[in-house]
């Protein structure tokens, strides 16, 4: 006969060890999020966004590139509607990521799905999709991985905010290049096939032309839709 205390101990271990595994798997993300979060904290501090709002964005938005863009737009005096629309467009890529993980989450309760989705970023998605087939069985591990990632992002933001008072100008440190460099890293990760490279080139060229033509807010969404549609055309044409 097993004593209740033993059962309790066993259950505890059954939760703690997958949680710990999730923390360990998140380490590469932590190494990336702390410095990038730092850069965000410094830039947000310099842009005139309040400390509370800067930290709140990391807590309730948790979207690296969208936060950088928002800070840049605030600094240039863009209105809230354009900021929200741009953020939405930038985040639309997560629609695909969430959609591609969804079939592996069929056994999850809705409240866990809601929590999991909130912390779904490019980087956590990359890790989850590499082990997508075991997501149904490893909920505590997946959630602790996400949680670790967000804690490091918020911590990085906090360090950055503190440092932004000490740093006179971000330019000598190259911090204003963090977003472009992050896009390059993410883009290279997305360019696994010739069709994707063609799509990226077309979309980049269209965005540049539209921007030069004077469209300074809608060039991203128009170029994205046009680029992805042309890319799909190329894909269908080459497969025929």
């Amino acid at each position: 006969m097993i004593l209740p205390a033993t059962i309790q101990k066993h259950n505890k271990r059954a939760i703690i060890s997958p949680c710990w595994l999730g923390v360990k798997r998140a380490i590469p993300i932590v190494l990336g999020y702390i410095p990038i979060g730092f850069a965000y904290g410094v830039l947000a501090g310099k842009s005139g966004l309040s400390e509370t709002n800067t930290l709140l964005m990391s807590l309730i938005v948790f979207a690296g590139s969208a936060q950088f863009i928002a800070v840049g737009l605030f600094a240039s005096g863009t209105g809230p509607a354009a900021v929200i629309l741009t953020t939405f467009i930038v985040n639309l890529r997560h629609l695909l990521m969430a959609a591609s993980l969804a079939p592996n989450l069929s056994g999850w309760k809705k409240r866990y799905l809601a929590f999991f989705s909130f912390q779904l970023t490019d980087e956590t998605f990359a890790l989850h999709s590499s082990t997508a087939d075991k997501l149904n069985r490893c909920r505590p591990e997946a959630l602790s991985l996400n949680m670790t990632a967000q804690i490091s992002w918020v911590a990085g933001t906090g360090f950055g905010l503190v440092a932004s008072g000490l740093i006179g100008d971000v330019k000598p440190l190259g911090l204003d290049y963090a977003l472009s460099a992050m896009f390059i890293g993410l883009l290279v990760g997305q360019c696994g096939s010739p069709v994707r490279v063609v799509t990226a080139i077309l979309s980049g060229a269209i965005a540049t032309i539209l921007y030069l033509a004077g469209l300074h807010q809608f060039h991203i969404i128009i170029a994205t839709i046009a680029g992805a549609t042309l890319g799909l055309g190329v894909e269908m044409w080459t497969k025929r």
Partner: protein
Amino acid sequence: MSVVTYLPRLLPTLFLSGKRLRPAFASWLRLVAPAVLAAMLVPSLLIKEETIDIGMDNLFFWAALIIFPVAWKWNSLVATVMVGMCLIALGRYLGLGM
């Protein structure tokens, strides 16, 4: 911002778990990610003050040419961002450009 970030992440996991997308729409969605990243990135590298500028003083453009292979070779976001920021810092320190 919180809402427009959360909805695209939440709705598919809630409503698509178990369902299948139309293949053409799924392929199109797959291309949105590279398209949106390139649309945000390319103008920021090429355009300075409303015109295309790929002169030596456009550090953003030249650093990008160096870190594209870095990103491709190491496949690491941290390395890409770190090398990128260091190159910009170095370029400015040496007075090569803005």
